[in-house]
């Protein structure tokens, strides 16, 4: 276990070093995350110029959702996107072989060995937006609400990880899977707004199939006393199930992996 914490430290240090080789990237990235955050806020503000509520949520409440959306976008871009990109490349040219012949858990290596540090700016910006919106509403969540929020954040992290792991696994079979990631981002866009905006089948789809609601809406609800405890329970169950399933899928895929250009 200790080995893996140490490895994580080394992987991330390694990634930071690599990014420092390309300094221009840093400024561009930092600028882009601030730009997109404001773009999101402007969009929401314009909407509320014409209406008082969105799916039953007020302007500030929607900002909390937008904050979570930005945070998780940052998390995905910082932790998951660089790894999936690298894995696609490694599977395509066959250097994933080097991962498999090392005494290291291949899933751990593939999932976490790369980090795009600059995108953590999104996480900070998103968290800032959440705190700002809470203050604007004059809300101070209770310890129980913070706890529920923390649990739902953990659920959201696991769900996001599972979705990306699932996509990475697909690269064993289909190699070029960049489009899966684009498709997922298209669904993730819906997470800018509370799930109550959507109705019927789409809502069920975004809750249970591609569980975007658990990533942005429900953690936000927890902070604002809008959470149905059932949602927390379902979230925990869903995270547990999906983690088990995607782990299994990964192991199966590694087994059937035939490296390129044999």
């Amino acid at each position, binding site marked *: 276990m200790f*080995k893996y914490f*140490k*490895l994580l430290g*080394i*992987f991330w240090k*390694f990634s930071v*070093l*690599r990014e420092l*080789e*390309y300094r221009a990237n840093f400024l561009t990235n930092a600028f882009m995350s601030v730009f997109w955050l404001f773009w999101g806020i402007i969009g929401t503000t314009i909407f509320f110029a014409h209406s008082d509520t969105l799916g039953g949520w007020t302007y500030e409440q929607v900002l909390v959702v937008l904050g979570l959306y930005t945070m998780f976008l940052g998390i995905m871009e910082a932790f998951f996107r660089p790894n999936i990109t690298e894995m696609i490349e490694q599977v395509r*040219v*066959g*250097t994933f*072989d*080097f991962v*498999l*012949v*090392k*005494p*290291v858990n291949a899933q751990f290596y593939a999932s976490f060995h790369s980090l795009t540090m600059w995108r953590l700016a999104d996480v900070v910006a998103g968290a800032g937006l959440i705190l700002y919106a809470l203050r604007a509403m004059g809300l101070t969540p209770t310890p129980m609400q913070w706890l529920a929020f923390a649990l739902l954040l953990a659920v959201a992290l696991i769900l996001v990880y599972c979705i990306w792991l699932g996509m990475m696994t697909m690269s064993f079979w289909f190699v070029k899977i960049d489009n899966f990631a684009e498709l997922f981002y298209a669904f993730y866009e819906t997470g800018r707004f509370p799930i109550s905006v959507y109705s019927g089948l789409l809502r069920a789809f975004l809750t249970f199939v591609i569980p975007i609601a658990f990533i942005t809406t429900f953690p936000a609800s927890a902070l604002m006393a809008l959470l149905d405890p059932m949602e927390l329970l379902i979230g925990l169950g869903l995270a547990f199930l999906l983690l088990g399933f995607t782990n299994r899928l990964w192991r199966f895929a590694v*087994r059937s992996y*035939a*490296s390129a*250009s*044999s």
Partner: protein
Amino acid sequence: MSEPPIAATHLKKYYQVHHKEPGLGGSLKSFFRRKYRDVKAVDDISFEIAAGEIVGFLGPNGAGKTTTLKMLSGLLYPSGGRARVLGFTPNERQPAYLRRMTLVMGQKQQLNWDLPAIETFLVNQAIYEIPDDVYRKTLDELTELLALASLLKKQVRKLSLGERMKCELAAALLHQPQVLFLDEPTIGLDVTMQTKIREFVAEYNRRYQATVILTSHYMADVTALCKRVIVIDHGKLMYDGGLEELAARMAPHKLLRVELASAVDGQNLARYGEVVKAEGQRVELLAPRSKISETAARLLAELPVVDVTIQDPPIEDVITRVFEEAARARQADAAEEAAEDD
């Protein structure tokens, strides 16, 4: 007797390969309906390799050398048969096994392109859990053997191919593996660099008593390093034994290099053997090994010979001949089958 470090018994690997017709039409067709056919990449191969041996795998492209190496290193599951390395079943990929072996692929690199090699070394140190003092000692040794001192801190993408290969080798050997799988480690390198890599492999083998399997397109690699070779063609084991016996067994001919006082016409020469080369007064003939002294005697008696030497033909030619003959035999078989089908 304990079991040998590397053993393959009736090892098999069959692939389903999808088969695409050329052109856009073919691509479209294969997008909707893929045609698959079975390819026997490795077809019932057995061998054992003793501790400290360096064995060369020979065979044309696609013969099954790399597939065999991948099964031995645990990257591929055998379709049949069994592989055992250091008492482990490779495809279980147990950490205790992976810690004691290494795989070097000349065509693929594990070093990070954007960073100096030393950074990848540190990642490997952590992955293999090499204690600091052991790491430093091994790195010093490798640095000395491979003359890495000036290379380690340069960005990998700024290194030449040969320099990069030296760093790749070091990265793969930091954990002092006992079993080395080297797949084309000298590919694309110039002759000097090839020699250096070769000398290094020999030295590593001596120092650590490591067992090495080597595949290479360059016969010089194999003749310099391996006493024993395993020849694979179309997934089948064609020969397993000493390099010299290979020449004797597979080349039933010897090469006569003759220097004549005056030119002799080709037809006249052909009576003594197959003319390989005839440039004025210098002639090379292939004659059956069994009658070689008789042929040489006749040459000396009947032609104006200044000098004659008898040699084994170059091993490259021997191997090429063997593969060509095997290919011809297969074609003949296929033609026969086709004829029977009609």
